[in-house]
């Protein structure tokens, strides 16, 4: 049976990320979650599996922390989970992540479709889909807002600014989907209960036989504070409006 692989990233919950007074970023209190856009990629894989009569498989590359993602992702519908476990994930650049994922995909039998989100909700680099395609020598379709399957042919609608482009490709292929492709449902009780019993395959990153040394190094990671002008107008309403307009003109807003 053909397999549809949904790639996802276990990211830090933005609400828990704290920026200290010295602009250093504190991730230590942040819980993990499946990148928001990946939820749609996972749902797209589940729907594609149904359409193709195949099996949806989830795949992630992450540190030990990503183990917590398995129950969550499997409650969203995939029948099997794959996890490339490696500390390299902590400072991986897009090429490292793509290499790790591609190496794992090679180990999964009979893959007909690989689905990524257009970008991850933390970095939004939009590279993983195209890079996996390049490594595996498969066609890549990005910015996909709709997928239809006719036999082994995928018809995908790409959203390009204010145009829609429809393309066709013979499977196997890699697609990068936009969040509007579906509304990922919140898993129900039985789905959550069943998730813990689904099979999970764990690969150690060292056993994949690929170089996971990043070419780009993160040299700084700092909070960004918007400098505000903090202009407060007080007094007569009429004068205030005039003063506001003048101030906006001065700033080049109007």
């Amino acid at each position, binding site marked *: 049976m053909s397999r549809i692989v949904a790639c996802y990233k276990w990211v830090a919950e933005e609400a828990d990320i704290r920026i200290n007074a010295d602009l250093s970023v504190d991730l230590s209190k942040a*819980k993990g979650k499946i990148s928001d856009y990946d939820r749609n990629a996972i749902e797209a894989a589940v729907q594609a599996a149904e359409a193709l009569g195949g099996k949806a498989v989830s795949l992630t590359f992450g540190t030990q922390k990503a183990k917590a993602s398995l129950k969550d992702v499997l409650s969203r519908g995939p029948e099997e989970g794959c996890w490339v476990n490696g500390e390299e994930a902590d400072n991986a650049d897009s090429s490292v992540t793509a290499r790790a994922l591609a190496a794992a995909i090679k180990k999964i039998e009979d893959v007909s479709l690989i689905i990524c989100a257009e970008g991850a909700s933390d970095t939004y680099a939009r590279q993983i889909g195209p890079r996996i395609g390049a490594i595996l020598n498969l066609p890549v379709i990005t910015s996909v807002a709709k997928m239809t399957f006719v036999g082994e042919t995928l018809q995908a609608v790409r959203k390009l600014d204010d145009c829609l482009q429809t393309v066709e490709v013979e499977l196997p292929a890699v697609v990068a989907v936009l969040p509007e492709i579906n509304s990922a449902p*919140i*898993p*129900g*009780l*039985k789905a*959550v*209960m*069943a998730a*813990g*019993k689904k099979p999970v395959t764990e690969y150690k990153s060292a056993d994949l036989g690929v170089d996971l040394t990043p070419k780009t190094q993160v040299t700084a990671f700092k909070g960004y504070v918007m400098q505000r002008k903090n202009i407060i107008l007080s007094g007569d309403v009429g004068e205030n409006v005039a003063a506001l307009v003048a101030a906006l003109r001065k700033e080049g807003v109007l």
Partner: protein
Amino acid sequence: MSDKFDAIIIGAGPAGSACAYTLAKAGKEVALIERGDTPGSKNVTGGRFYTYALEMLDEKLCEEAALERPVTHEQFMMLGGERSITIDYHDPSFHTPESVPMSYTILRARFDEWLAQKAEENGALLACGIKVDDLLEENGKIVGIVAGEDEMYADVVVAADGVNSFMGQKAGLIKDLDAHTVGVGVKEVIELSPDVIEARFCLRSGQGAARMILGCTEGIHGGGFLYTNQESISLGCVFMPDQVAQYKKSVHEIYQNMKMHPSIYSLIEGGKTIEYGAHLVSEAGYRGIPSRLHREGFLMAGDAAGLVMNTGYSIRGIDLAMVSGIAAAKAIIRAAHPYEAGPLYMKELENTGLIPSMKKMDGFFDILETPWIYDRVPNLATGVFSDLFSVHGQVPQSIKNSVLQRIKENRLSLWQLAKLGLKGVKSL
């Protein structure tokens, strides 16, 4: 997977997780269903936790539990105008190297997640982010639950879904809330460095304080609480909602005023609020326990069963929740048939001393119902202290006269105070 469990537990708080832990350890098939995305995420409790309940669940659990500071300082504070009196009872025996400390301050988001994980490790199936919508009933028996489009069956359903239990209402065991029997609590977690916390509360390294505060509610039935965590302070206030509704200020405003009191502000100054929440808390004590805590196939535990004790000098709920969760599990394990679980559960609650303890403390409800203890008594006490310690070089009033004058000033009488004292003695 079979759709039938030995037990379905609704709510992964201390009651639900303790129940699931005990059942799973005994080899029962247990589903533990939590509405929050993680256990503890919906919780607002202070709080403090008495360790005996965790020891009762399993030996050695205390050693690895997600706890904050062992409480060695029990404090009581009265605020009157800008003045305050704080009584600090320091008891090193509450924390000795030889034994498990009697109580710890805790942050429930961490504690609940840890406890639920322990239940999961024992084999309970934990499902988070799931709201249970209804109970399934067959021939007058509760046989399962409905969550969204899913139905799930069990021999026994345990409602551990907290104060104002929707499951208890669905089962017809409790009515909708009576505003008179619940308080509205607001709580803030304020981050401060351990050094600052220890200096401000005169604590030895790693030790903690628990404080009850009277006179911070602008006369409304209620009071404040403060707990020192490792790197934060939990500060909050509980009010009776029916009285707040008639008052011109919001709960938030009254709470902000309390924070700005000179004696409170100096404790939290420079701190950063990292969490703010509000919740209901049962205030009725023994008489708040529903007349029936079970039906065939259905048990209620923890806050859902009204198991909260407020004496005015301490609040207990988390330990009672765990004890009741364990009692429910034991009853389910012993019951040869689901209909036996209810009566066995009541017997367990009696045997563990939980219900008798609450009965014993019942009198406090009447004392706490005395409307003038929330502003006039703290005013009176701080006024008397002001007279005692004020020296201006004039001939002082006799202490007796000053006390009498302060009583009068606060529109109280000796007779009222004597009656309260008597009531106090009786309920103790």
